[in-house]
């Protein structure tokens, strides 16, 4: 068996590949499910029902997908420029921190002004968090994988310090959590009596906007050129350094927005368990989506559905809910293989 490069990859193949990868992942995980002694089809049925089968399930999945779309976009935008931002988790917490500080009653504005202000400020702070590593990369060639990854721990410790100290909620009965944001800073609900909030609309809107920028504007054109071949971009006269830095601002900003949206749309206050690794899952989302902004939305919903559905499944059957982690990881691996098969064809002999 050998791989041969394909001269061209038809669009149909590119669309079928992710679906095939997911089917393969589900088939592989079926072995594990069967191992627990549970009936496979019924388990998957429960999973799908728990993720999509009711109004409640569906809104829960979409609520879970919201931060994943934003961190997924953060990773996709950066990775396309070959800026390996592994620090979305830290940028998310910086955004969340900005949200509880600005939205905690410090500024008194009507909701129509306060919400955009908080969101933009969170983006700015998230972007600024990535700007440091980006400057170090373009100026001195410091590996951003290391700096962004380590910054995550710095940020978490900073948040921990603030939650134990100046930001600690006096009404919080001693828990390390911030005071809640005031109601004018809250994102409105999209559907009444559910947890689904306007963050989803913002995230999907941004995904579409980023896709349009990417394909239709000179900004996107420059970004793609620099991502694919910075030397040729510089030779053609593109401002490569500025393009890298603005990509960093955007990527960090999207992750920061994810944090602010979680605080202002869902949790209301900041704790150290605001994010169950949304920043890192964003990388998986972006890879599953093959770094395509619209694909990110689909991939985020898929991963959210697996997690939400697995929770429901584990309540009804003796299958631990960490099967979700296994399924997501298997999907990513299958997706990588599928990506390979889109670019190469398998030959016998």
């Amino acid at each position, binding site marked *: 068996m050998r791989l041969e490069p394909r*001269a061209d990859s038809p669009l149909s193949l590119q669309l079928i590949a992710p679906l095939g990868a997911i089917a393969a992942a589900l088939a592989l995980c079926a072995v594990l499910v069967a191992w627990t002694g549970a009936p496979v089809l019924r388990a998957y049925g429960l999973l799908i029902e728990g993720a999509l089968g009711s109004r409640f399930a569906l809104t829960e999945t979409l609520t879970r997908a919201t931060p994943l779309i934003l961190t997924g976009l953060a990773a996709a935008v950066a990775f396309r420029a070959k800026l390996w931002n592994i620090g979305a988790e830290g940028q998310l917490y910086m955004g969340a921190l900005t949200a509880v500080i600005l939205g905690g009653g410090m500024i008194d504005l009507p909701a129509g002004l306060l919400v955009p202000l908080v969101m933009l400020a969170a983006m700015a702070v998230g972007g600024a968090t990535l700007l440091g590593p980006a400057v170090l990369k373009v100026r001195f060639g410091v590996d951003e994988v290391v700096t962004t990854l380590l910054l995550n721990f710095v940020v978490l410790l900073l948040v921990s310090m603030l939650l134990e100290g100046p930001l600690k909620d006096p009404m919080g009965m001693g828990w390390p959590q911030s005071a809640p944001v005031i109601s004018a800073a809250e994102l409105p609900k999209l559907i009444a009596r559910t947890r689904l909030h306007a963050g989803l609309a913002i995230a999907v809107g941004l995904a579409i906007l980023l896709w349009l920028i990417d394909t239709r504007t*000179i*900004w996107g054109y420059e970004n793609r050129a620099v991502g*694919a071949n910075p*030397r040729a971009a510089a*030779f053609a*006269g593109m401002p490569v350094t500025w393009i890298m830095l603005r990509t960093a601002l955007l990527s960090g900003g999207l992750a920061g927005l994810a944090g602010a949206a979680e605080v202002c749309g869902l949790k209301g206050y900041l704790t150290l368990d605001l994010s169950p690794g949304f920043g890192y899952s964003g990388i998986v989302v972006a890879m599953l989506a093959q770094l395509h902004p619209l694909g990110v939305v689909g991939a985020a919903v898929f991963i959210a559905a697996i997690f939400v559905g697995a929770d429901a499944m584990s309540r009804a059957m003796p299958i631990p809910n960490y099967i979700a982690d296994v399924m997501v990881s298997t999907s990513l691996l299958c997706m990588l293989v599928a990506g390979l098969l889109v670019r190469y064809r398998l030959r016998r*002999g």
Partner: protein
Amino acid sequence: MTAASASRSLSTKGKPEVVLRLTGITKRFGPLLANDAISLTLHAGEVLALLGENGAGKTTLMNILFGHYVAEQGTIEVFGRPLPPGSPHAALEAGIGMVHQHFTLADNLSVLDNVAVGTESLWRLRSDRRASRTRLLELAQRFGLDVRPDALVADLSVGERQRVEILKALYRDARILILDEPTAVLTPQEAAGLFETLGRLTADGLAIVFISHKMNEVFAASDTVAVLRAGKLVATHATNSTDRAKLAELMVGRTVTPPAPLPLLAGDPVLDLSRVTVVSGHGQPLLDAVDLTVCRHQVVGIAGVSGNGQTALAELVSGLSAPDSGRVTIKGVGVERADPKAMVHRGVARIPEDRHSAGLVGAMTVWENLIGERYRDRAFSRFGILRRSAARTYAREVIKDFDVRCPGPDARTQLLSGGNMQKLILGRTLAYRPDLILASQPTRGLDIGAVSYVHGRLLEARAAGAGVLLISEDLDEILALADRIAVIHQARLTPLLPNGHVSIGQLGLLMAGHWDILPEILDAA
């Protein structure tokens, strides 16, 4: 190499033994017939040149031989035994060594490690470094391949890396050596050294297949020449029974007439360098008080061995760098700082030395590459929005005007052949009727057809009033095109010498730094 196998390849009777026989090799890539029933034989001690244009199927054929690809039809026999298809391992076992065009060395390992890697069993705990070293040095000495076993590959020049690649094959007892475009990356001097090595290898009974599209190399190095065209073997000749014109015609399939420059009077200066000095980050001079003038209707050729300051000169005129001292003037206006975009808008057409890595973005489409230098112009964008249909229309025109062979404006650039990539770059820059053309190694790695096309376009631009600064390592190219020639050596540039008043021999001496002959040439001129 054991005595037994050495005697195996040298036949006792007069006629040398057949070491390799390809019969009816056929290979398709989708609709493309890359190899069409090709049959070849190779004898011990023979150098076979495989000549053909880019895309003629030379590399595919050798990749089949080495087991990278599997042929649909045909058989391969090595030393009389059939070679199992599709296994580089089997090819190595059978004594076939391949030196790829793009080297396959690990930069962070030493020469010795690179040569020995993969030859020792993984189950052995200790590697016998001393034996490997002795063997490497012995091979190096026997074939005149001078290497330092402990040097890091990253620190080696291209020529040295190639020697390591060859040693790697010899270390594995190769008796048949395939060299894929071995001189594409070499200077003329390094190429001459390589041909000397090939002589020693064949004297030892090795057989060599030498892939090339350069005529003079075929005559310099080969015994037999096989010409491929569009996947077919069109002719096999003893090299000394044929001539350049005949081979060129076989290769291209029609007669090629190289374009010749019309006599023209030089016009106003478009580029002027006055006492220009550029210093590297380490304080070394890259250009040292260089004076140079290029006028309209004039081609100025810069000859020199690579690495003597050509890159710095090209970067300066491309707008990628600014002089540390001295003055650069374009059409009478001084250049103050490094700004490639400003150079483009001043009417400088820039053809970069390395079209893959600096000229084009391979992952992007043809139309996206064509607007690369001018995407901010009103013709291609308004208020930051790309005018994609306008850009595609423009791309279609350039594709037609410059005869770029590609499926269309939306084709990925990396799928184009080298010649078509260069046509794309020519189209991108020459379509705007430039005043000055910087052509850095404009025909490196191109086949005859594409070379004469590029030359023709440059001369056309010269006739239309452009000045051309031609930086090339190919002396034939400079002598064919340039009105005036300057030689660059260790960051310094000779005065401009009129073409026709300086011989190849004199240029060679100047390139080697013997500038004491300059007064003599200038007096004669």
